[in-house]
């Protein structure tokens, strides 16, 4: 019924636009009106799964549907108006329009809606802990208080997930004749995401014990952005303010966590150092917090003369997690304190043609990110409130970043242009709970050449080298030694161990004593750092365009290769490679025929270490 109503409204709208266009055309010979209406149908079909084949097609669900479209352009006096739109079904439509009145008031708006189909992880391939087919991470033991508990299960099998995505945005501008060069404006945007998607929950032993649920999605993002721009001859100024609100009206998703137990005594009533488990009942999972963001941006550009200009900008923003009050309960894993992120950044750029052949560009940018610490109250290992532990997680986001950059462009010959540049970036993190190094400096050097070789051939070549003095590295993330674990080379317990509690070397130690303290035995004995961030990176770019003389052909070839390595403070060599290359050929054998053929090859390889600890807790 809803669909038929929309069809009816659309038809009335199309008829109105068509009649309006005809009437206006007759009123004034100087008036220009162009209008069109479109009407037809779509016949749609699918076989098997639609999550990929019709990922962005809502029509896959329908056999036959009417389709409507309309456009209108009106120009008369000092007024211009245009509209264009297409309606395929109530989940797939697009409309846009704009109007201008005497160059004093202008408005443009757009609305788009489509359906995005999502896949579903069947959770059948979590075999890192077991080769048994379909076994996943089934527990082999049961608990008196949870006799039928199934750890690795999908609560929404065969469910087809998808999101109805829609967005409208509009911008209005006022240019007052009494203030030449100045414009005031307001932009607004509202985005809606509604539907269902797969949600997953994991426990402390999360790499295996994963459960899937159907999650309701009902989210909205609202932007409100007033701005003012002034073009005052050599000086241009702009100020804009952005208010962004993320609203989450989704139904809550709940999960009942795995039963936890003492690692070596299933009859124990203790939680085994897990913060919550089956006995806490259904707990909310996978909730995106609501946020508010305020951004102030100021930009200024001054043309010193025809060959030089200076540009400066400043950005101040505050993002607030407005769900803190709702989620600060211990059972939900929320923070006891406010969670705001403050961001301040300033940028200065000078650009100058020193002569007709040489251009310099120098810029600097400073950023400061200050994110609040999150404070949690965690349950102690006995589960008793008396054992509660308050923990403050310092933000990894808080940092100062300084970036300095210098570029030069030199027209060496009429057919040859050379470019070079150096960039220095310094990152100083405020907190380094798990990182090997707190600060890093990154140096980037680049060179580029463009040569018009003649006979229709143009060649571009570029090289970029990056050196990161201290790549992002987690300290002591892997590899306990044999003596730390108390095992021999074959992984069998041999009783020779550094006592995890006292640090004293023990011979013929009892096995259970060492394993009772996970924080020291499992985590505390790791000795090697891990990183997946290159220390050195080389990037090569080649591009060629060829238009053979006297032909109707255009050839475009490109090649990009990136190679990065890192063995700094690591016991292994990290390496990544990326290649992206292709060839496009356009051929026009006749004035009425144009043909294009293309091939692209993309390849990415990463060699690293993979460290999976697994337990039987």
């Amino acid at each position, binding site marked *: 019924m809803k669909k038929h109503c929309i069809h009816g409204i659309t038809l009335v709208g199309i008829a109105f636009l068509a009649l309006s266009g*005809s009437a206006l055309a007759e009123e004034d010979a100087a008036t220009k009106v162009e*209008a069109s209406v479109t*009407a037809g149908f779509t016949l749609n079909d699918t076989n098997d*799964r*639609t999550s990929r084949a*019709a990922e962005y097609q809502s029509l896959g669900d329908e056999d036959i549907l009417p389709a409507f479209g309309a456009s209108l352009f009106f120009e008369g006096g000092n007024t211009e108006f245009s509209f264009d739109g297409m309606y395929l079904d109530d989940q797939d439509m697009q409309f846009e329009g704009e109007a201008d009145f005497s160059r004093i008031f202008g408005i443009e708006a757009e609305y788009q809606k489509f359906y995005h189909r999502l896949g579903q992880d069947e959770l059948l391939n979590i075999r890192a802990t*077991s080769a048994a087919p379909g076994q996943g991470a089934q527990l082999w033991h049961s608990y008196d208080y949870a006799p039928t508990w199934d750890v690795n299960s999908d609560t929404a099998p065969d469910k087809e997930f998808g999101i109805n995505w829609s967005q409208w945005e509009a911008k209005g501008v006022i240019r007052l004749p009494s203030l030449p060069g100045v414009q005031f404006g307001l932009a607004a945007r509202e985005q809606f995401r509604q539907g269902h998607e797969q949600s997953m929950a994991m426990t402390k032993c999360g790499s295996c014990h994963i459960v899937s649920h159907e999650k309701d999605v009902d989210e909205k993002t609202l932007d409100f952005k007033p701005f003012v721009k002034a073009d005052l001859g050599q000086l241009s100024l702009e100020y804009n303010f952005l208010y962004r609100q993320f609203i989450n009206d989704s139904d809550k998703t709940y999960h009942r966590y795995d039963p936890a137990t003492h690692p070596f005594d299933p009859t124990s009533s203790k939680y085994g150092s897990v913060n919550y488990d089956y006995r806490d009942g259904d707990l909310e999972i996978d909730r995106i917090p609501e946020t508010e963001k305020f951004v102030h941006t100021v930009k200024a550009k001054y043309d010193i003369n025809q060959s030089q200009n200076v540009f400066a900008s400043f950005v101040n923003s505050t993002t607030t997690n407005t769900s803190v009050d709702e989620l600060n309960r211990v059972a939900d894993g929320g923070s006891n304190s406010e969670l705001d992120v403050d961001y301040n950044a300033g940028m200065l750029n000078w650009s100058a043609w020193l002569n007709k052949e040489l251009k310099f560009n120098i810029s600097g940018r400073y950023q400061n990110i200050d994110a609040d610490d999150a404070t949690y109250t965690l349950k102690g290992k006995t589960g008793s409130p008396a054992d509660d532990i308050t923990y403050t997680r310092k933000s990894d986001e808080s940092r100062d970043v300084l970036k300095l950059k210098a570029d030069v462009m030199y027209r060496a010959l009429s057919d040859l242009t050379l470019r070079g540049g150096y960039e220095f970036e310094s990152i100083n993190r405020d907190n380094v709970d798990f990182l090997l190094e707190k600060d890093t400096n990154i140096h980037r050097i680049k060179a580029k050449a463009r040569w018009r070789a003649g006979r229709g051939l143009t060649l571009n070549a570029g090289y970029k080298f990056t050196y990161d003095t201290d790549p992002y590295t987690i300290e002591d993330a892997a590899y306990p030694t044999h003596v730390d674990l108390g095992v021999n080379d074959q992984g069998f317990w041999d009783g020779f161990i550094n006592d995890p509690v006292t640090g004293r070397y023990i011979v013929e130690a009892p096995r259970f004593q060492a394993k009772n303290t996970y924080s020291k035995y499992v985590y505390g004995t790791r000795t090697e750092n891990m990183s997946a961030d290159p220390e050195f990176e080389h990037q090569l770019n080649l591009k060629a365009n060829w238009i053979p003389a006297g032909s109707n052909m255009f050839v475009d070839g490109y090649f990009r290769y990136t190679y990065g390595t890192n063995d700094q403070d690591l016991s292994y060599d990290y390496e990544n490679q990326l290649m992206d290359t292709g060839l496009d050929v356009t051929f026009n054998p006749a004035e*009425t025929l144009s043909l294009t053929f293309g091939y692209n090859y993309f390849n990415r390889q990463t060699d690293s270490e993979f460290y999976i600890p697994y337990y039987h807790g």
Partner: protein
Amino acid sequence: MSYDDSVHTLMATANWQAMDKLSFNFGIAFSMAQSEMEDIYFASDPHTAGDRLDAATPWKGTYDLANTNDMESYSKLEYNTLDLNLEALYSISDNIDLTVKYLLTNVDDQENYVYGDESGLYHSLRTWVTFRF
């Protein structure tokens, strides 16, 4: 451990003004995408030894390295995707156009790994008349 992903894409388009009143647009794209994690090897683990985790117990050797190292590759994905579109535009008169469009997407999932068998076909025939004023 190494992770490798690659995509080959072939495409062709053609635009032909066959007659004053009739034009065709044609496009085809075929891509072969695959990725996998290889050379995974678990070096040692004390939990595999003896007592409660060997194959003779109810635990059935779940965590035995003989099982975990049985995997030659992991997270293996392979998709072949064909996209096709054909559009014909015929001007019935100066003010009326007829458009016929055919879209097809065929996905051939050769590994069925994470999301199950995602092989599927979508096709759509779209026809409409445009009146200009």
